[in-house]
């Protein structure tokens, strides 16, 4: 579960990233990055809900469901498939949202937290610490869309980054382990570097394994022996 930073004090950075197709079936109709988003609102404060709802609808978004903080949040997500979730920072069901990304059937979704004006310090500090996307009560409706754009942009960047990071880490680990396995073969079998690499590659191919994985197996085995 990711919670994304949203800087209420700054306009969204340009250029705006394209919305990924996973957030809506409808392609963006104009240069406005995020219109027609399916929004889920979770709050107990009816007047605040109304304010948020009006502002979001005015910007062309669709409120797919309004829930109080006691409601079954996962069922709401499953049934209504929102693109983004707005939730009170202090809602107990935030812990349920934390498990969203961990349930195989459910993809993580961008979350916008909102805080009461009296809790503006929390919002301000959280934004500065890079913790959360916050909307504070009484925020002018026209700012809402801009904030939403940033929340989603940050979410997408973060998703892409974590995927890249995983891939990059895997590549780095492969390189490191292949080097170490090569070194091991050179020492044990008295081979030169080219021969060691050829041998490693052949052994991996014979076992239908990736060379990085096989290098790790070899190293692990040598560690035990």
């Amino acid at each position, binding site marked *: *579960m990711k*919670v994304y930073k949203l800087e209420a004090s700054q306009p969204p950075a340009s250029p705006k990233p394209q919305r990924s197709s996973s957030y809506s079936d409808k392609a963006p109709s104009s240069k406005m990055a995020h219109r027609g988003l399916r929004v889920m609102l979770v709050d107990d404060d009816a007047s605040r809900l109304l304010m948020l709802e009006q502002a979001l609808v005015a910007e062309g978004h669709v409120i797919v469901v309004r829930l109080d903080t006691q409601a*079954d949040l996962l069922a709401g997500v499953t049934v209504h498939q929102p693109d983004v979730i707005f939730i009170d920072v202090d809602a*107990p069901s935030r812990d349920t949202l934390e498990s969203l990304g961990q349930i195989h059937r459910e993809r993580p979704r961008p979350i916008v937290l909102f805080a009461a004006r009296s809790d503006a*310090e929390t919002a301000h500090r959280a934004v500065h610490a890079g913790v*959360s996307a916050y909307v504070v009560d009484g925020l002018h409706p026209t700012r809402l869309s801009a904030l939403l754009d940033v929340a989603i942009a940050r979410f997408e960047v973060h998703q892409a980054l974590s995927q890249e990071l995983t891939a990059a880490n895997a590549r780095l680990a492969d390189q490191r382990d292949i080097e170490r396995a090569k070194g091991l073969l050179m020492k044990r079998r008295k081979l030169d570097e080219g021969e060691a690499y050829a041998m490693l590659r052949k052994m991996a191919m014979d076992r239908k394994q990736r060379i990085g994985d096989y290098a790790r197996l070899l190293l692990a085995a040598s560690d035990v022996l």
Partner: protein
Amino acid sequence: MKGNGRLVHSSLEKTSLRLGLLPLADAAPLVIAKSHGFFARHGLDVELSVERAWAALRDKVAAGVLDGGQMLAPMPIAATLGLDGVAVPMVTAMNLSLNGNAIIVSRALHERIAELVEGPVDAGNSAIALAQLIAADRAQGNRRLVFAHVFPFSAHHYELRMWLVSANIDPDNDVQLCVVPPSQMVQELDAGRVDGYCVGEPWNEVAVQRGIGMTVATKHEIWNNSPEKVLGVTRDWAYAHPNTHRAMVAALIETARWLDQPENRIVAAEQMIADGVIDAPASALKAALEMRTGGIVFHRGAATFPWRSHAVWFMLQMLRWRQCWMAPNFSDIAAEVYRCELYREVAASIGEPCPRSDYKTEGDGRDGSVMPSADGRSIRLGADGMLDGSIFDPVDPIGWLTRQKLGLPAVGQASLLLANVVP
């Protein structure tokens, strides 16, 4: 430090603190440390903030709105490994409580379990009966049973899984797991939206007293005297406020000692109700805090010591259940997050006996076993046995992981070995 164990107050980097907690029975140490003057004795003026979600507490600690607080034991590790989506590294220098959770099932499910069990229902036979029920439900095309816990990185989550796998039930395929806030558990069970849950007190007592649910397993049965809550702060906060951190730990160890006097438990329950910390019936809270075998422990048996073997255990659960996608170096992370050194300094200053070692084998400890303390005395430890009878040797975490039949780590064994090669 002065000889009497109190820090020179002028050395405190900060004296006014805001600490977070959740409305649970095991929040007692923070509540009592404030109400009974333990914080004040150490020069701290503490404001307590009752949070409604672990995520909110974590965000506020990460953002510096709170100085620290009660946390689920796996939270600082998940934060430091960057698994919680916020990735602000956290540390803990003390355990706040052991035990205190239980697995409760609906009356209907309990009836089905009891029919298959000879004699009283316990943690072991209930899981075996559940496995039979799951097989029968599957044959008849019934829906999967739903079990709730409180947070992805919680002891509750791992205990629920330990209970299920003790009877070879696959927690990811044979049942459905979900997260429900503790205060909503009872109503979810009552409404039939969940069939069972693992939650902390007083929410088990409430379900039992209201006749909605029945206990099938306690945390103590699943893993005797196992870690539950810790005192968490961010790594940066700990670095910037070492003396305030020490003062906080000293006050809380003294509070824990006070809380483990049986007559004080009722005082604690009344204090929590008077302070409006928990919105639950007083009878349930009092019963939850009662001192008994398997009940909540705050101090006995070196309960406040932050064992690094616990940290390694939690990392293994994160790996086993695919919450962690990289190979952590177990001992490095454990040392980074579990601040045994700070605990020992504080313990020495307040005359608290304290283990010499940072690690212990989990699963083979008998109740009352004696361990030498750092100051030449001895400490009597509680039992640390596990439901499946297994023994966890923190020297060989990968060995433990490879012996598990269910739960495949996303990280290959070889990567784990490499990350943990001692240079």
